[in-house]
């Protein structure tokens, strides 16, 4: 019988006929062509062409194809897909616009001398061949290093409290840590500013470090808490059962196991504070020269440097701002990328260990 004739079996849900592929192709091409045509040839404004012509047409054409294939549900699916892709593309365009404009505009200013020299004798119109952000890089490093020295032990201790103790206060501590992680940076600056008379502190580097401290602490505490939580509790219990006191179990067993996670926490915390501007504007007076003493006189910092050069009419000053922004973004991206790579390595390790154990069991 003809019904049993040998035919290549295609699973019905994966089958895509060539006519449907063609329809999909046309459905995505025609609206684009119409919109681009109306923009370039008819001279319609690009925003109108995009939102008023392209989007409705694309929804319509995708809807027709979907309706053709699956009926009403196909229409709705097409609507969802088109809107999702349209909105996410907007996100990508916006975000990559930020990155690319920093790279493109900052590239001119960047040079060895720009990274190494400081800003003494540089006026708003001095050519880019003189002066640079060397003093700001050093200043940022010193300010952030002091913040790190303060925040890392405290952050890890909070994380230890949250994961190892059995206190009833763990919940409230976690809530407060999360709540201050959304502390507005300007409030942190105002806080240190209103503390300064009591501490007999001037607008020096150390004050800037203190102002960054409440911003770094919660990131440090939360990410190291996650890292400590990844260490199996059995390890700790085993150490305790062998007679180790709590602190030895922590320093010799848990901390080494969670090392990469803690370093990730450190890197993310650094990335969080290195670009903070408002606290430094309020608590640290700027300096055009290189100052390495965090307890005496003002100090330059990268965000503060950008801040003072953003809103000027002079092209060279603007280019300095873009150059410093590029340096800052590169530092942040570097910190971020190393945190990611560290995190990934850890995953790989656990995977291989699992495979080995399975083999042994078999």
């Amino acid at each position: 019988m003809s019904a049993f004739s040998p035919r290549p079996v295609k699973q019905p849900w994966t089958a895509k006929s060539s006519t449907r592929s063609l329809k999909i192709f046309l459905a995505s091409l025609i609206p684009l062509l119409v919109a681009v045509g109306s923009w370039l040839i008819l001279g319609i404004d690009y925003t109108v062409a995009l939102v008023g012509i392209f989007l409705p047409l694309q929804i319509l054409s995708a809807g027709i194809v979907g309706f053709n294939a699956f009926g009403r549900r196909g229409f709705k699916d097409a609507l969802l897909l088109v809107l999702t892709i349209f909105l996410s593309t907007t996100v990508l365009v916006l975000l990559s616009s930020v990155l690319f404009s920093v790279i493109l505009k900052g590239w001119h200013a960047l040079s060895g001398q720009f990274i190494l020299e400081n800003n003494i004798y540089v006026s708003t119109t001095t050519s880019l061949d003189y002066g640079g952000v060397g003093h700001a890089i050093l200043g940022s490093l010193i300010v952030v290093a002091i913040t790190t020295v303060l925040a890392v032990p405290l952050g890890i201790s909070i994380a230890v409290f949250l994961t190892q103790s059995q206190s009833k206060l763990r919940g409230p501590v976690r809530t407060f840590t999360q709540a201050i992680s959304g502390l507005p940076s300007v409030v942190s600056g105002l806080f240190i500013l209103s503390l300064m008379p009591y501490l007999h502190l001037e607008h020096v580097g150390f004050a800037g470090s203190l102002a960054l401290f409440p911003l770094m602490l919660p990131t440090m505490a939360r990410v190291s808490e996650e890292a400590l939580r990844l260490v199996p509790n059995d390890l700790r219990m085993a150490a305790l059962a062998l007679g180790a006191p709590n602190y030895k179990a922590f320093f010799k067993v848990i901390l080494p196991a969670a090392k990469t996670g803690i370093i990730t926490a450190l890197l993310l915390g650094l990335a969080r504070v290195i670009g903070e501007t408002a606290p430094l504007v309020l608590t640290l007076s700027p300096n055009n020269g290189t100052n390495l003493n965090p307890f005496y006189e003002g100090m330059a910092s990268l965000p503060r440097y950008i801040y003072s050069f953003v809103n000027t009419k002079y092209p060279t000053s603007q280019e300095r701002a873009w150059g410093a922004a590029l340096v800052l973004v590169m530092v942040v991206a570097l910190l971020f990328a190393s945190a990611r790579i560290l995190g990934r390595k850890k995953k790989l390790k656990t995977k291989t260990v699992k495979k080995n154990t399975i083999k042994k069991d078999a």
Partner: protein
Amino acid sequence: MSVNSTNDTKQVRRNLKIKPSGTGDVIFSGVTSVAAMFTFVLVLLILIFLTIRALPTLQANGLNFLLGSTWEPDGSGVMQLAPMIWGSILIALFGILVATPMAVSTAYLIVFVLPRQAGSILTSIVDLLAAIPSVVLGLWGLWVFTPIASHWAETLHKYFAWIPIFQVSNPEAGFQRSPFIAGWIVAVMIMPIITSVTREIFSQLDRDLINGALALGGSKSSIFARVILPTSSGGIIGGVLLGLGRAIGETVAIFYVLNLSTDINWGQLLEPRGGAVASWILARFGEASTLEQSGLIAAGLVIFCITLIVNFIANAIVNRAQPWRR
């Protein structure tokens, strides 16, 4: 009855208590407890010291500090913050309105549409952009985005001027430095946060639930609208509130792209005047007298309280929506 009997036979798991033993341990647990208590102390210290400095202003202006709209620290000494508070709220709301659909659709794309590799690349990009300093965003906002967005604003005004929020008193003045542009900048800032919270919740959704809906004949759109969104709505709302906290506290980026004005702007998004508490503090502090400093610190106290409350609520919602984190 039956419930009771099963309870009786069920083995009760002993709750192991780990108590500090020996001096080393006592010191260890003491140090960590003190560190943990420091979180409370920090919040308290911020509240106390800001209040001490803010007190003169708060006493002089009373409740009008929040409701009035005069700022004359050098003349009458009257300082009132309503235009800035309302401006912050307006910008934050507009930013959320713009950012939320984009963030949710990006998260949907990452988790449910794209292949795993492409999704993780997109995740990395979005996470990296969460770490871009706000001063850099301000630089971009002022020199790159403002010309583009003011063109958008002009187009909006051209076609939708009959809607009250798109009306402008003086179209010749240009469409720059408006809450519309500041709202977009804020949207770019908070989009990564909302995206990452939503993505986390989407990726932890029970796959059986989705497969079950598919088996019952659900389509992609009906699953999105009736399964994915309802089950993760709590988490998304929490993420949006986290974004709201950030948006209210945002300082530097708004400072560059907004014309700060004590003339209150109730909702004309395209009008080139608006307010933002945090940016106001930054803008005024440089040349402020001691009296005005006190007023600005009071303003800081206001946003501290607002963001603290918003963050508490947001984190409570997010934590409830992410039980696997506990």
